[in-house]
């Protein structure tokens, strides 16, 4: 394993552990770490909303800009002051969420293949976010703004951009004019607009995007930041005076850390670092990584054009086109560049039912590396091999808890690319083929490597999403377990408890009639 892979795996392990620890109080859907992108967007909307109010009261005159912002904190603390503080703290939280999102996606290996576009479009957004953030601090025109403006222009002047040093604009108090703040406000509005446009591009090739976290998380986050704004309101430093170097300054390390870094090193070091990091982020997809898996394949003869794969694909890789052979019908079309090879489409296809009597089960959309027919063969062979008392079939996710160690004479384990590729009818097929119970393991709530596998599986098994598990299947014989890769022992315990429940609860009379696909007549 090379250094990069080792570093990535180590970081991923840390993230996984912390996310799983957070699952206890939050649950999967409310776990902020599992929805960092949505958290970032939500924080950005707080920044935009509070910023609109600040814009309405801002006086861009050189003498008035400082007072107009200070007035919010001192004379209108209950509204303007709170909104100003929210603007600052939500900006800081946005930076934090953005950087955590970046590191998390890298550690999970989400920067190449079908995720290449999202990765590449995400990198420039970091620059835009920092440009907007640093520019925002200048508008206050306090001593922190003075330090930031001077330091930023000195940093920019190291690059061969301007014919005259831009730092000359901040040489003396009389060097600044009213128009400076007018331009600054337009930049501070324009760059975030570009950021929002970039965010649209960043997510537009993903299906079922979480644009916002859950209502509970939004309320809790807004309440937390509001309380912070009330107890520790954001205040200006003393007004800017270009004739002196400011002394001790309350400093925003989330956004302005680059200035102390420049003072500590040099503009050459900082630019080298910034350009090298940006180049590295762009070049990451070129580093060695796991080879791409075969993408989903559509069989026109078996595709009914029902649209379910199109609706369920987490990456918007499937579109519907007119069926070439059946006028009036549609046909699923897979975009290989977007396909994640998760198999969720195969699980959504109504043609994937194992009850079809054909010797070879060809479905409408399938995964070449694990066709539904192979899945049926594996299940039938496992059912035929069963020996022992309580026979349990475990359909497990290859990305979640490793269930292979549970395989025994009375326990069959069938690994799936993602649990979302399991057609619910396989559960009924297993029960009618001789299994006493079926366990379906998926990743933890909100923790699916393919985003929606565990969600679609839950909804399909609960009858809330098509294709749904038939209501005739007794719930007592089905157990859905949400387990991460670290939950092996919890999975073993849960399967043992499930087996015990089946054995002790006296549910033998709820057995489904057996079904033998090859028999001419079946019960």
């Amino acid at each position: 394993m090379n250094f990069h892979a080792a570093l990535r795996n180590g970081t991923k392990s840390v993230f996984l552990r912390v996310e799983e620890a957070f699952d206890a109080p939050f649950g999967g859907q409310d776990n902020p770490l599992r929805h960092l992108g949505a958290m970032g967007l939500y924080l950005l909307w707080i920044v935009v909303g509070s910023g609109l109010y600040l814009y309405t009261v801002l006086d861009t005159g050189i003498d008035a800009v400082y007072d107009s912002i200070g007035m919010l904190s001192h004379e209108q603390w209950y509204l303007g002051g709170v909104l100003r503080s929210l603007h600052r703290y939500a900006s800081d939280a946005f930076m934090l969420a953005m950087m955590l999102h970046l590191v998390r996606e890298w550690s999970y290996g989400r920067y190449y293949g079908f995720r290449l576009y999202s990765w590449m479009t995400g990198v420039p957004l970091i620059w835009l976010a920092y440009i907007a953030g640093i520019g925002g601090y200048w508008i206050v025109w306090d001593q922190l703004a003075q330090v930031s403006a001077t330091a930023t222009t000195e940093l920019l002047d190291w690059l061969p951009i301007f014919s005259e040093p831009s730092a000359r604009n901040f040489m003396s108090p009389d060097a600044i004019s009213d128009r400076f703040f007018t331009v600054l406000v337009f930049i501070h509005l324009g760059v975030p607009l570009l950021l929002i446009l970039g965010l649209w591009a960043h997510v537009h090739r993903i299906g079922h995007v979480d644009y916002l976290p859950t209502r509970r998380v939004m309320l809790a986050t807004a309440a937390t930041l509001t309380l912070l704004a009330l107890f520790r309101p954001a205040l200006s430093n003393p007004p800017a005076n270009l004739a002196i170097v400011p002394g001790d300054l309350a400093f925003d390390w989330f956004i302005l850390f680059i200035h102390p870094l420049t003072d500590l090193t040099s503009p050459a070091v900082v630019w080298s670092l910034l350009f090298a990091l940006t180049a590295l982020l762009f070049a990451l997809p070129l580093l060695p990584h796991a080879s791409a898996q075969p993408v989903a394949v559509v069989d026109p003869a078996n595709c009914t054009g029902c649209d379910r794969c199109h609706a369920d694909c987490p990456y918007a890789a499937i579109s519907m086109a007119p069926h070439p052979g059946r006028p009036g019908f549609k046909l699923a079309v897979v975009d290989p560049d977007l396909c994640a090879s998760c198999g969720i489409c195969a699980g959504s296809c109504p043609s994937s039912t194992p009850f079809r009597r054909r010797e070879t089960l060809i479905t409408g959309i399938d995964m070449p590396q694990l066709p539904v027919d192979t899945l049926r063969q594996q299940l039938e062979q496992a059912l035929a091999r069963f020996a022992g008392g309580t026979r349990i079939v475990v359909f497990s996710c290859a990305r979640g808890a490793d269930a292979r160690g549970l395989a025994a004479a009375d326990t069959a384990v069938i690994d799936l690319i993602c649990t979302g590729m399991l057609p619910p009818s396989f559960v009924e097929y297993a029960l009618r083929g001789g299994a006493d119970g079926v366990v379906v393991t998926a990743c933890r709530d909100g923790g699916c490597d393919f985003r929606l596998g565990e969600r679609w599986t839950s909804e399909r098994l609960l009858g809330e999403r098509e294709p749904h598990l038939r209501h005739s299947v007794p719930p007592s014989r089905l157990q859905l377990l949400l387990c991460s890769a670290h939950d092996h022992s919890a999975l073993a315990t849960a399967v043992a408890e499930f087996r015990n429940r089946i054995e002790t609860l006296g549910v033998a009379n709820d057995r489904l009639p057996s079904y033998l696909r090859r028999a001419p007549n079946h019960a």
Partner: protein
Amino acid sequence: MLKPAAIVGQVILYGAFAAFIGYFATSPTYHQIADDVALIKLSISHLGDRECRQRTPEELAKMPPNMRAPKDCPRERSDIKLEVDLDGEPLVRTVMHPTGLYKDGVSTVYRRFEVKAGSHQLTVRMDDNLVKPGFDYVKNEQITLAPRQVMVIDFNPDRGGLFFK
């Protein structure tokens, strides 16, 4: 419905989040320079002189009447030589080159120096035409810098050349 333990856990974690954001949004404080130090900013932007040549009467006679300028001034500007001494010790020795593809733009310099607050002897010499010997502009002054004061060395021909502010 959330369990009480989950609510307590969430309150603790949201509180930790607020504390983290609230602390690093303002703390630790940043101190750019030491309290007993002042800043000298050397910032000059100036067009170097052009090395013009007097045209001979023969040359002028060959030119169209409306273009008979007595001097032939090339587009290029001269480099500018700059020296700064602080308390007799050399602080800067540099030659500023004109900007632009044809070297017809301004020559600029921007540097900042941290010096101990107090009284200093500051000497600046500038030569904007390197063909001619010697420095065209010289300013030598005793300066007193207060702690954290910013003093700028600039050049403006309308203000008599080099000046401190």
